[in-house]
């Protein structure tokens, strides 16, 4: 059973916690040993947030170290850039092509970097960076909150779990009345790859 190290990064409030819960539960269903480490509290108020997911035959520390992540899922592109040092050589980056300006940019003191996706591709290898406008897809599906499920759908293609396991885990992790739209978002992400 191969170990997979992952980090999920984004802006507090974007739904990274639900994502890690879905991945963790799917891993459990596939009989992996799994640990997930989350951030709660102050950073959840619009700050930069990171969640760690580690799975394999045995996991000690719940944290992923720099240059150890097989996969990074970034809910926002500046956050992808901020945490890119965690990606190991040859690792994959799934990045939501969305821009959320941090306060120093909002106030005009600093500049939001240009062409982030291209820079990331240059750094990590063109084929290793999967960029998607998940917000646009979510809007088309009629619910901006399902951005995370689009990204999970893409992730599912990179992981050794069956699609049924993913859907089961999603079903158990989201409120029943939102299952359908979440499933649709997952399917769109899954179909993109």
């Amino acid at each position, binding site marked *: 059973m191969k170990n997979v190290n992952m980090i999920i990064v984004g802006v507090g409030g974007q739904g990274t916690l639900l994502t890690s819960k879905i991945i963790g539960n799917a891993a459990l269903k596939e009989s992996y040993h799994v640990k997930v480490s989350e951030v709660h509290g102050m950073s959840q108020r619009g700050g930069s947030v990171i969640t760690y997911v580690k799975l394999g035959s045995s996991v000690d520390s719940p944290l992923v170290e720099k240059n150890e992540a097989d996969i990074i899922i970034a809910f926002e592109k500046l956050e992808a850039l901020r945490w890119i*040092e965690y990606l190991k050589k040859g690792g994959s980056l799934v990045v939501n092509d969305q821009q959320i300006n941090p306060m120093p940019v909002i106030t005009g003191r600093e500049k939001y970097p240009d062409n982030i996706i291209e820079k990331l591709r240059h*750094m990590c290898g063109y084929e290793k960076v999967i960029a998607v406008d998940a917000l646009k897809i979510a809007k088309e599906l009629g619910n901006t909150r399902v951005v995370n499920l689009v990204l999970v759908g893409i992730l599912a293609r990179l992981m050794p779990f069956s699609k049924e396991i993913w859907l089961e885990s999603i079903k158990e992790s989201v409120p029943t009345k939102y299952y359908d739209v979440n499933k649709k978002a997952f399917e769109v992400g899954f179909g993109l790859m």
Partner: protein
Amino acid sequence: MKKLMLGNEAVARGAYEAGVMVATAYPGTPSTEITENIAKYDDIYAEWSPNEKVALEVAIGASIAGARSICSMKHVGLNVAADPLFTVSYTGVNGGLVIMVADDPGMHSSQNEQDSRFYAMAANVPMLEPADSTECKELVKEAFRISEEFDCPVIVRLTTRIAHSRSIVELGEREDISLREYRKDPGKYVMMPAMARARHVEVEKRMKRLGDFSNQATLNRIEWGNRDIGIITSGIAYQYSREAFKDASFLKLGMVYPIPEDLIREFAAEVETLYVIEELALFLENQVKQLGIKVTGKDVLPVVGELSTGMLKEKLLGQGPEPGCSTEEKVPVRPPVMCPGCPHRGVFYVLKQMKLTVTGDIGCYTLGALPPLGSMDTCVCMGASIGMAHGMEKARGREFASKTVAVIGDSTFIHSGITGLIDIVYNNGTSTVIILDNSITGMTGHQHNPVSGYTIKGEPAKQVDLVKLAQAIGIERVRVVDPYDINEFEKVVKEEVSVDEPSLIISKRPCALLKGVKFEGPLRINKEKCKICRICMRIGCPALVDKGSHIEINETLCGGCGLCTRLCRFDAIEKAGDLNEKC
């Protein structure tokens, strides 16, 4: 059944399985989810108490009345609960009593990174420390057994990475624990000098017995590996060490106080180099050194912040990280911000405009200290804003008080602001205190409190009437204002700071994230009307973006609270839908 559980959730499960009947807490990151999850079990009475001291007192009462009880708090909460803690150590328990304390090394969401292990030592109370979610559940159950066997409260200490990490837990059944008989026993439960003197002798005897227990307990275990390196460790530091030192020998402590002295001697004698690996202070290390054993620990590792596997590899094994992807690009920082629509924003904007000295407090609104609002001068602990404003007046005089306000949240005010307010009235202060009443405990993720009108289980409760409360303690000037109405808000603050008596301003608006709070929908800038004066940028709303040549509103973030429209002098901010309709 196996379940992936947060450490805090596993603690709750442990409490359930241990037959706990009463659970109390004041919310505080990283401990909040313990009691939130306990509240989901119908078999357990759970409450949010007004503060940690009350929470512990309720749990002590329940324990003496015969029930297994648990009380949870963050590290700084234990400071508040320290008074009952030190004496419940003397009285001991009837039903088992477990105190959960969650430390926050690295200060992810705290004002200090104190090491709560010293409380165990100072109060003569045993302390356990789990290293993953399974241990969270099992150690809580073990803590109840120890509590009842040794007649003492037991502290179980978590740190953020244990409390907020999920790992796999095997669920068990709830033990059938019935209420113990309640017996009046003043010699044990009335701590006045004559009785307390006798109890202190018992406490010392108990600690001796607990020391013996620690040597025998399966909580503390040796995992033999290569004997070149031996590591004494506990909690999350055990996980980092295990990952960094694959082949070393470990003495893994589940009971961190009292330490198993014989087991440590035995372990130390068998290994060539001995490390103590622990986060924060030299708690274990100094105790091991006192046994006359040579160790390496904080001479190499930091006492500040968290440890990590990478740090251990680097500092103890000399292995630096291999270079991976990296960027030369300057990445702007992303500090936390008040949410769009946050009712606190208008308050801090006004206070900044008025150039007031602002003594602040603990909550989401502490973010008012950051740019561009940048209008908070101090933040020390829960409730401190009020006492500090009063202290400033007594040091610098009435004139200074007329340029000073204390700012405190509703839940924080109930927690420990009331006594400060009484002090101002009693000692002839003239401070102006602003209570930010957003109808919820916000920062910790929306917990009810005595002002919100609901219990932890969502049942309706009496609401504290802040106006009447202030009047009852002798404040004659009480004003209730809507912070969205910044002009009115400024007018009221001006009036109240200038009067020669204490006043209370209640800034009343529910948290924008609360269910049921609805705005009229996103706004947008009318570019023809906008003069790019940037006055709207001063409120630090994440939905407003300065594009250099123009200002833009991020329609995904904007809910339409309208605070910016009240600032705009050119009527240039309008409903996003309006333009579409014209098209």
